């Protein structure tokens, strides 16, 4: 299905959204990605990817409640759509299949 393929970074963003559950907003997603990948992730890049994922129908978003932090600006929270959940499950299946066919000797000595 066109538009359901996800790139590597898109997959990571989807995984971060899934991991954060109810707290998946852009700054938290950046922090989660930085924590797990070990490389600094730019806010603008994450925003662009989230926008693209929403256009593809893989995530949904809604504005949260107003708070006194962030200059009073509300956070936009993201959740996986059913298509988004299917996309990351599919991506995991593909990787697991590849891992299962790699002979042990290939990775010896790491």
């Amino acid at each position: 299905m066109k538009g359901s393929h996800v790139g590597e970074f898109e997959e990571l963003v989807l995984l971060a959204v899934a991991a954060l559950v109810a707290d998946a907003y852009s700054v938290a997603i950046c922090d989660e990605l930085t924590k797990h990948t070990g490389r600094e992730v730019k806010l603008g890049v994450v925003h662009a990817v989230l926008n693209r994922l929403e256009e593809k129908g893989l995530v949904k978003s809604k504005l949260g409640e107003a708070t006194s932090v962030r200059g009073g600006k509300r956070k936009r929270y993201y959740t996986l759509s059913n298509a988004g959940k299917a996309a990351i499950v599919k991506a995991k299946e593909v990787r697991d299949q590849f891992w299962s066919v790699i002979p042990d000797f290939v990775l010896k000595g790491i």
Partner: protein
Amino acid sequence: MKQTPIPKPPRWATRLLALYCRPELLEDLEGDLNEYFDRHVLSKGLWRARLIYVADVLKFFRIYTLRRPSVYKPFNSMDYDRQLF
């Protein structure tokens, strides 16, 4: 006792963001930039935090954040045909 003023990002940069950004994205982007600004003030100092804020406002100038033109009337061939006949 004199209170220390709360550090704020450059107002002109915030106004620039509001000028080009789509209204439905503005609050979220501004909030994120404010959150990063507060972090950077603590970790890097006020001057660098303001510099980073301005750079981020400029970096957000992308196709998906830009306001759409307010006057947009797609060509409708039925309207055109109605005028002719």
